[in-house]
């Protein structure tokens, strides 16, 4: 199994566990931890992609809410200080990436014509491009 196959295998395992969590949560858990969800079913399929992606976080929040461990104060303290960090990150990273990318640019001659250098089968060469 090469690296790319391994990545896809891990992704499949992750999604499979996510599907199990999604089934359990949407059939049983959501009604226990969110009174607004009781009797509301149409929106539930919309949650499936999110659960597939972040099922460990879903399990953790489910456990916190089941045990009534949630601190309501945390719901009303938005992390606004992050704005400055993001702004500084943008101001540093974006010009840097553009400058590096620009310095790597390849300049082609105005009369450059593409040349076919290989074929899937048989010989290949500039003669093909000229033909």
């Amino acid at each position: 199994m090469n690296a790319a196959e391994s990545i896809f295998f891990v992704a499949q395992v992750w999604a499979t566990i996510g599907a199990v969590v999604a089934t359990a949560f949407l059939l049983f858990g959501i009604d226990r931890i969110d009174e607004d969800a009781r009797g509301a079913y149409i929106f539930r399929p919309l949650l499936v992609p999110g659960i597939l992606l972040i099922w460990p976080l879903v399990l953790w929040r489910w456990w916190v809410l089941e045990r009534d461990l949630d601190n309501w104060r945390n719901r009303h303290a938005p992390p606004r200080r992050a704005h400055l960090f993001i702004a500084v990150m943008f101001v540093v990273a974006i010009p840097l990436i553009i400058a590096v990318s620009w310095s790597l640019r390849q300049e082609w001659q105005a009369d450059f014509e593409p040349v076919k250098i290989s074929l899937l089968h048989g010989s290949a060469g500039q003669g093909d491009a000229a033909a």
Partner: protein
Amino acid sequence: MSVKYIPVQWNPNKWKYNAVMLIGVFAYLWLFIEWTPAIMSNDGRINGQIHNARAFGSCAFLMLTVILCIGPLARLDKRFLPLLYNRRHFGVMTLFVAITHAGYIINWYFSFSASNKYEALLFANTSYGQLSGFPFEVFGIFAVLCLALLAATSHDFWMKFLTPRIWKRIHYLVYFAYISVVAHVGLGILQDQQDKIFIVVFIGGALTVAALHILAALQERRSGDPDALSSGEWVAICHASELREGYAKVARLSGEERVAVFLQDGKISAISNACAHQNGPLGEGRILDCLVTCPWHGFQYDVRSGRSPAPFTEKVPTYQVKLAGDQVLVNANANPPGTFVEPVPLPSGA
């Protein structure tokens, strides 16, 4: 807004927002696909598949650029606040445009071989040790995964379930996605792109996003909410004479907690400045009929109880208020969300 996760306020503004967005996307794609072969310098050498990939790719870049301009613009100038209203739909649409771009790329550059095309996308170029010829596709993959996560967790349920604090931290991934997109374009098509319109739009768009964010952050730092002056559990917010009927004074209590002190019918009430929905700044809203409206998405709260009017169920914490001479004091220990607090009358002559 929704009640029991059933949308009840798809009002005309929301329909208009979505209509303008969709018309804009289709108009851009139509113009790019039908018109740009004539005006782009090197389009004679690419086929329809690549041209479509470029149309959707540039569209996704522009959409993400606009999305990221909305936040700082709204912080710099409140006239841009209506653009925040339905930004999530904008984001989900951007994901679909980006996936279409990826589809064209994968089905052209990574197909036609015995290898699985998705695996080929990952191993066709592994020159991670050099900048020139760097496998820029990986930046695009990262950005699409981020956008997918944001779209998949965009339903209101997720904000309530995860709490706005965790939800926002997840959604900060959009900033890393944008940097990744800039790297994807910069190390990708910018390398041999001769079209001046493309170069100006790409570099101009990316630098505009960076400039707006630093301007908004500096303004927030310069004229942000003042810290409340603490003396024990009671903290001074402002002078009573500074309060305006129907509006709030906002002060920071501790950490990221902010209180909004309102004057309504000559009486003072205090609630959390963070809306229960997405933590929008309630203190920037105005009271109408006892209710303050969040400037971000229109959620409303009674400033005396912190409760949304029925049938809505959202609640925010309230604070005890008292006057010490002309000073408005707030008890820093917030009451649980939805707790009624008797408003304090403003002394006559204040």
